[in-house]
């Protein structure tokens, strides 16, 4: 079926199998592999994107449901040849990236958090990121990165 979706500001039309997720559409049809497929059941957050402005797991959105909608992915936060987004910069500077598979989903979740709560305390940070699993870092430097990004935003 044909699905027309606005991704990172540009409209795209794709012919997808009806049971495909938005994640599959982004990765396999639109060549946007930044959102990751670590679990495909909404348990890890590695596929986090904005769907009509809301932070969601794209593996749990039917591609067809995105017809006529606006989607923003991690790729939309910085240009290929441009500087990284301040949150991306903070993650690198804080040492919060190891294998990096969880990182795009976390970047999106953190940008979402800081848009809503510019100066979150530790409990707020942890609750906001409780839907993003990381297997490498133990989260310590991820919390540092959020604080770094929040401080820098001012």
């Amino acid at each position, binding site marked *: 079926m044909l699905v027309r979706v606005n991704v990172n500001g540009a409209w795209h039309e794709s012919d997808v199998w*009806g*049971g495909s*997720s938005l994640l599959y559409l982004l990765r396999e049809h639109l060549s946007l592999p930044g959102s990751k497929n670590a679990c*495909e*059941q*909404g*348990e890890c*957050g590695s596929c*986090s994107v904005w*769907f009509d402005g*809301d*932070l*969601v*797991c794209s*593996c*749990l*959105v*039917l591609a*067809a*449901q995105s017809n006529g909608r606006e989607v923003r992915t991690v790729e939309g936060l910085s240009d290929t040849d441009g500087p990284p987004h301040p949150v991306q910069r903070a993650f690198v500077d804080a040492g919060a990236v190891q294998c990096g598979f969880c990182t795009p989903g976390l970047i999106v*979740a953190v940008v*979402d958090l800081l848009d809503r709560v510019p100066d979150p305390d530790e409990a707020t940070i942890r*609750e*906001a990121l*409780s*839907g*993003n699993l990381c297997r490498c870092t133990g989260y310590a430097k991820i919390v540092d990165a959020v604080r770094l990004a929040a401080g820098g935003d001012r």
Partner: protein
Amino acid sequence: MKADRPEALPICGGTDVLVELNFDRQRPAALLDVSRLDELRGIERDDGRITLGAGVSYTRIMRELPDQIALVQASRTVGSPQIRNRGTVGGNLGTASPAGDALPVLAAYDAEVLIVGARGRRSLPWHEFHLGVKRTALEPDELILATRWTSPRGPGSFSKIGTRNAMVISMAGLCLQLDEDGREIRVALGSVAPTVIRAPEAEVFAGEAIARVGAWDDAAAALETEDLDGFADRVAAASRPIDDVRGTAAYRRHACRVLARRALTWALADRREAA
């Protein structure tokens, strides 16, 4: 539309349906996307009666129904922020898992489920809607429209048990709601029976104990330890848990007892403080 394609599986937030698709567990002949139906996305308050559209996300519930404390607490425990932005009470009802986090709250609120089909609208009390594990009273041509309850006056809470501090399917869930107007305690349990259940003997016991010490009229009057224990024991006795991959029956029953005692203690303490 549902009547034309009765085999179509309704999908709204997708947080249950997409898992079934991604994991190749279900291949429904068709999917019916109800996520944009305005009729499902409203919240109405009408003289103490609340109608919550089946398509309202948990995030919106937390934001737009802040005084429904038990429901807000339950919403906060659902999945993750990403899931809460998509998951709905309609989904909890439609999936009909006894572990659905909102379901004990609907039971403690004595909510009814509003249904629409080719033959028109009807409503069912919560306990007549859920028939068993993953089974509801919905006919093939019907969709869940909303749930409706009378906003209870009095404190309430929702608690759930999981072996991880976030993003966990409930091993046992408990909602307690105190109703000043009806002078009753309502307590509902999730994940410890094929459907969500109430604990009627415990409710009667607690109501009578509160009456006996005069606490309905005087919020400062305290229950005895034996009353709290008696209530907790009866709640545990109402549970019918099984051993499964998430936990043992013995622990679930034990957890119900502990949560029941705490929830009643909190409700009475909150009342005392409000007074």
